[in-house]
Each structure stands twice: as structure tokens, then as C-alpha cells.
């Protein structure tokens, strides 16, 4: 009897926990509410199956548990029943897979007008790059990374010179504008993860990965690294701010470009060299 009670409690308890517990996803801040919907459909279908199986077991234990004189039935197969169950399961699976693949198609199809933003990971810091006035990100190479040029931009590429670079600071995005996030790493795997955006993707040294989203509300969101990248993995945090158009422009105009950055380091270096010469 204890078995029956526990099984029923377990099924009912799991459902109640799901409905009543305070733990649920963070309010969404991107267009990926399709993902949330697919997740909800999956919760419903799987929840029904789980409860049905566990309650069926509880009933069997209650009804068919051993009593003196009992004898089990002898029924090796039941083709028809097995056929129905397999068919029903296939339908249930299709009901989850179809919307899933539909949404995945959206997920992998970047809208043509999407702005491009680059996120670069390194142990254990996020950096960002936005295209400059030309609207294009310049080329880059891990081999070109130096202490002054920590993102490895190509100095000979005109498109790179006007790129806006944010090292270890905040990334701002404009609300309502689709954006393709290009991901790059100069050392190990990382993963750009903002729970409110739902989307995430690994960053892999040696290649550029991407995903896209449209931020749907303004606010400040935390960036986490979701791929183990060494001891500092949990400390690898960043910030994304979703702005309205005006705030976004103000922020953008106050950022430093690649050529400004190079010039600044050059002046610093010359100054240092002069100081050194003067000291002698």
C-alpha cells in the first residue's frame, strides 16, 4: 500500500510543484517567445504522459499485488494494443517536433536587415565590436592579437579601422532592431548566454559562430558564460543594455574606434619612450 500512496503522491506532487513553485524562467526580452511556447507544449505533452504512466503503475500495484491464491494472466503479446500505443506515441512526438523544427528554421534564418555585432571571448572577459560608419566589420585573425590589439583586428583593412571596440565594458543593443551576434574566441570555448534572450551559442577559437535575435524590451541584462572555460568560468560576466534608439545613438557616439584606440596606445608609447629618453 505504501507503494501505491507514494506513487500517487509523486505524480500529483510533481504536477503541483510545477504549478505552484516560484521557480520559473526569467521574463523574456527577445523575440524568442516561440521557444517558450514550444517549451510549454512539451511540458504539457510530457506531463500528461508522466502522470498517466505513474498512475497506471500505482493502479496495477493496487489491483494486482500478490494475494494468496492469485495467479497472473498469460498474455505474451497483443499486436493491436502495441500498434495503437506506438502510433499514439508517434503522434505525440510529431506534435512536439513539428513546431520545434518550424521555430528552429526561424532561428537559423537571419533576417537580411539584421545589424551585426561581434562578441569576443577570452579567459575570462567579454569584449565587443560594432561596425563603424561603413556598417561593416573589418577582418580579424587570432594570429594578430597583441596586447595593444587584443581582438586581433587587421590594421590594413580599412573596414576595421572605424570599428567600435569595447573591451570588458557593456554592450548596448537597440530595442526592436534585429541583430546578428557574431561570436569569436581567441583562446578556449566560451558561450554567450543571456537568460532573458533565451538564445545562446558557443564561441569556438578558429571559427566564427552566430545567432540572431530582436531585443523586445529595454533594460539591463547579465551575460553569463555557459561553456566551461577554465577556473574563472563562473566569474566571466558581462552586461548587455537594451536601449531605445536615442539612448543607443548617444552611447554609440561616445565609444572608441579601432583607429582611435591604436592612436591612443601609440601616443602613450611615444610618451613613454620620450620619458625614458628624458630620464637618461
Amino acid at each position: 500500500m505504501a507503494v501505491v500512496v507514494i506513487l500517487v503522491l509523486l505524480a500529483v506532487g510533481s504536477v503541483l510543484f510545477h504549478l505552484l513553485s516560484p521557480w520559473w524562467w526569467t521574463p523574456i526580452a527577445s523575440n524568442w517567445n516561440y521557444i517558450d511556447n514550444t517549451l510549454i507544449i512539451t511540458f504539457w505533452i510530457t506531463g500528461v504522459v508522466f502522470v498517466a504512466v505513474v498512475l497506471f503503475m500505482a493502479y496495477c500495484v493496487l489491483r494486482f499485488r500478490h494475494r494468496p491464491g492469485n495467479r497472473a494472466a498469460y498474455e505474451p503479446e497483443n499486436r493491436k494494443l502495441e500498434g495503437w500505443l506506438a502510433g499514439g506515441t508517434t503522434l505525440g512526438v510529431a506534435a512536439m517536433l513539428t513546431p520545434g523544427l518550424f521555430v528552429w528554421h526561424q532561428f537559423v534564418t537571419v533576417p537580411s536587415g539584421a545589424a551585426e555585432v561581434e562578441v569576443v571571448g577570452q579567459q575570462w572577459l567579454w569584449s565587443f565590436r560594432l561596425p563603424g560608419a561603413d556598417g561593416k566589420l573589418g577582418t580579424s585573425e587570432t594570429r594578430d592579437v597583441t596586447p595593444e590589439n587584443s581582438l586581433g583586428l587587421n590594421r590594413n583593412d580599412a573596414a576595421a579601422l572605424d570599428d567600435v571596440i569595447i573591451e570588458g565594458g557593456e554592450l548596448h543593443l537597440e530595442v526592436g532592431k534585429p541583430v546578428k551576434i557574431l561570436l569569436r574566441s581567441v583562446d578556449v570555448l566560451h558561450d554567450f548566454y543571456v537568460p532573458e534572450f533565451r538564445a545562446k551559442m558557443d564561441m569556438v577559437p578558429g571559427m566564427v559562430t552566430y545567432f540572431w535575435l530582436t531585443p523586445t524590451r529595454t533594460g539591463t541584462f547579465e551575460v553569463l558564460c555557459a561553456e566551461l572555460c577554465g577556473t574563472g568560468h563562473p566569474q566571466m560576466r558581462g552586461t548587455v543594455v537594451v536601449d531605445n534608439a536615442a539612448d543607443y545613438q548617444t552611447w554609440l557616439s561616445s565609444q572608441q574606434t579601432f583607429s582611435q584606440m591604436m592612436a591612443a596606445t601609440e601616443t602613450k608609447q611615444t610618451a613613454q619612450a620620450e620619458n625614458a629618453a628624458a630620464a637618461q
Partner: protein
Amino acid sequence: MVDIRSGTGEPIGPAEVEDVELYHPHSWWTRYVFSQDAKIIAIQYASTAIAIGMVALVLSWLMRLQLGFPGAFAFIDADRYYQFITMHGMIMVIYLLTALFLGGFGNYLIPLMLGARDMVFPYANMLSYWLYLLAVLVLVASFFAPGGPTGAGWTLYPPQAVLSGTPGGKDWGIILMLSSLILFIIGFTMGGLNYVVTVLQGRARGMTLMRMPLTVWGIFTATVMALLAFPALFVACVMMLFDRVLGTSFFMPAIVEMGEQLQHGGGSPILFQHLFWFFGHPEVYIVALPAFGIVSDLISTHARKNIFGYRMMVWAIVIIGALSFIVWAHHMYVSGMNPYFGFFFATTTLIIAVPTAIKVYNWVLTLWRGDIHLTLPMLFALAFIVTFVNGGLTGLFLGNVVVDVPLSDTMFVVAHFHMVMGVAPILVIFGAIYHWYPKITGRMLNGLMGHLHFWVTFIGAYLIFFPMHYLGLIGVPRRYYEMGETAFVPASAHTLNEFITIMVLVVGAAQIIFLFNLVWSIRHGREAGGNPWRATTLEWQTPETPPRHGNWGKELPVVYRWAYDYSVPGAPEDFIPQNQPGSAGLAPEGAS
């Protein structure tokens, strides 16, 4: 191979196998240490696996202490935490579950259930164990090596696994880990070939493939899969070892490590992930299929009813085994591989759900109109179904590519795989031990301790891992040494973490009762007799309990029927052993 139909065929004389075919031990050393008897090797495998499994268990306590009470234990720093995670995961999956199911149960049950005297290559079987032990020792050595064991996560993803930001990356940790895996695979291959050949060639007369107990089907299919899957891990380990030691660049692109350009270039980190998961996904089923097989036999025996849909069960095992080789990239949806792969792998992954669901239906339909004895093996089998169904269903979330995107790499994944391939198979292992211990030792395990162990483990494990899904849903990532201050994680989530940690310690304590029971009952358990569960399969029909070397005395058994003649109408008893001639029993055609 002869197919003997029950009742209709000519009486077949028992096959006599001369004793000289077996190498009988001449000394204590060759009997108990360098033994070639599959049953002794099984016990050696099992004891080693349980011993190293205890290490993994203790590591999980330490990890949970850190997660439940961050910073309260000064010696668990971030480096150690990652080393604990890595060793815990690797030990549990490879050195405990794989070794215990295949090396332990496989060795003990295959010859006995098939009516063979031993494995066909006893010497290779012995070597298999000693290589396994060596692999375990190399693994243990990494705890004492300078820099400690690797902290790269059990997936050992490069480049991080061989760089200095990861514990053991530039020290001995990763080298010893890879070496240990290589040894394990060599050892496993010797054992695995043995199991396969024994199943194909060593069956008693009348034991057709479609009369084999599902336990053997599960172990057999899992072994074939392991023989196909482990080579991928093997080459991945060798290549990574080369990258680390010889400076090759199989998995290493151009890298700037902490501001310094490395010599590597041109390699692909994703290549490793493909190799790893080409092994890693089948590995899930290498652990699950033996569990499926064993639990089918437990349910059938203790519900006194034939397993429902035997042929469907066999085909489901084989189909799951085959399909599991074309789903590996569902672990890589957000790895940066070509996103269009997602369509293919999501579809194959969800298709696997169908044969898997059929297995679940057939288990619960076996209970229907059964005569359910709530023995400990039955209780564990019921607990397995609940846990497995729960974990299997959350697999539908993670397999459905787009739903995986928010959940991947969060605690949802941790909860999912612990349910489905951590707790569920372990529950089967417990059930199986309560079931076969009487055959192995001649005595029953103590029931009171057994019930205590069962209830705490089942309910405790559910309470640990069920709520954990919701931490992942909030967005708590896995492999986080500490969450720190994170705006979207409510304070109540920390309370939940504390609760989980306390449950972990309670469940851990219950395992100590179990270990005590194992030792205590060898001497003090109730005498079991030869067939305490009144089961049909051959291992319960041996002339002696525990069976001697050679298993069967002078005459090998002859098999007349399938493994599931329980409660046959008109039969005097509610079970008919497989080696009992006669026409009663209505097993489906093909199975009879």
C-alpha cells in the same frame, strides 16, 4: 543452431562437454586472484567498480556542499571543484556504470543465463579485468600527481583541457586521464569481444537467440555498441595526447593563451566534440540497454508474468542501439556546428523516443494482470520506471533542438541526465544486486536494511533531481563553482540548493547501509536455496549455489522454451524453467 519447439520436437540428448575444456585453477592465486572463471572476474569487476564509485559518490557530496553552502568549506576552491566535477562524472559513467554492467553483470550472467560453462576466451577475460584495474589505478594516481587530476569536465573539451587555465591542463592531470581511458578501452575490447562471441557461439542447445532472456539481449547489444563507439573515444584520446605532449594541432587552432601566442594552428575543437559524442551518446545506451534488459527480467519474475511483447522488446533494444549512432550531435546544438544539422539530429533523436516508449509500455503492461510480489527487486524496478520515464521525457525537451537552446548547459541538463542515466540505471543495479545476490553468495540480503535503503534512495534521489530542473529553467548554468550575485536568480533558489544538498547527504548515508548489508549478509543472511525467486532462467537451475567453476557439473542444460513461462495456464507451478521439457506454455511463435 537447433531450434527446438516445445513439445513438438524430438527429445534431444543432453550435450556432454568434457571437463578438460576448462582450465581449472590449481592454487589459491589462480582461483581467486588471477582467475579465469567469469564469475570471479565478475566479482572482481564489480568490487573495483563499486570501490571507485564510492570515490565518485564522495566527490558528489563535496560538490553539493559547495553548491548548497558556497564558501563554507575553504578547501573546496574553484580548481578543486572542477576537478571533483570531472572525476565524478567520468568515474560514474565509465569506471562505475560501464564496468559494472558489462564487466560485472555481463561476466556473471551471460554464461549462466545461456547455459555455457564460461566465456569462450577465459584468458582474455582475465586480462580485461587487469587492464581495467590498471586504468582505475592510473585514474586514482592523477589525484596524487602534481597539479592534481584534470578539471576539464568529463567531456574533456579541448583546447581548454590542455591549457593552463584548467586544472591539470599543463600538468599531469589530463595526461593521466587520457592514458587511463586508453587502457580502459583496450581492456574493455578484450572483454567485449568475449561477450559477443559467447552470446553468438556459446549458447546451450535449444537456446535460440529469440529465447534468450532480455538481460542477455541488453548486455549483448550494449557490448556490440561499445565495440563500435569506444574506438571514436580512443582516437580522440590519442589525438589529444599528441596535441598535449608532441605539440600537434588536431584540435588546436591558433590560440592566444593569457596574452601569449601558442605554436598551434589549424586544428578543430569541434572535431573533438564530434568524436567524443559519437562515443558519448551511444555510451548513454551502453549503460541503459543492460538496465532495460535486467529490469525486464526483474519485472517479469517478480510479477510472475511473462514480459509483455517479448519480440517487440528485442527489436526495440536492437533499433535503439542502431539509432543511437545517428543522434550524437544533439549534444552539440549550440556548439557552433552548422546549424542546419539541427534539423536532422532533432528528428532522429525524437524518433528514438518511439521504441523507448514502447519499452516503457511493455514494462507497465507486464504489471497489468500480474501477480505482483513487492520484493526489493520489484520495488527497485518500479522506482526505475518512474525515474526513467521522468528523465526520458525531459530528454524530449533537450532533443528538440530549439527547446534545447535555452536549456543547454544549465542545471536542467544536469537534472535530466542524472535522472535518466545516473539514478535510473543505478536503481536497476540495486534491484539486480538484491535479485542475484542469493545466487552469488547463497544467502539473501537483509530485508529491513534493504527497505530502508530503497525508500531513502528512491524518494531522496527524486527530491534531489526533480526540483533541479527548475533551477535550470531559471537559467542557472551547470559547472558553476558559485552563482555569486546574479540578478535573475531569486533568493529562494539558494534555499532550494541547500535543500538539495541536505537530501544528497541523506541519500549518501543510505548507501552506507547498503554496503554494510552487502558485507553483513555474506555470513548472516538467510539461506537462499538454489532458486529463491522461483525464476525460469537457467542461472537459477544450476546444480550448486553458488555455481562452481564450469557452472553445470557434467551435463550442460538443454533449453526447451523461452525465458518467460510464468503462470502458464494448466501448469502445476507458476513458473516453468527453461530447461524443463514439456508442451505446456504458449510462448509466441518464433519465441517458442
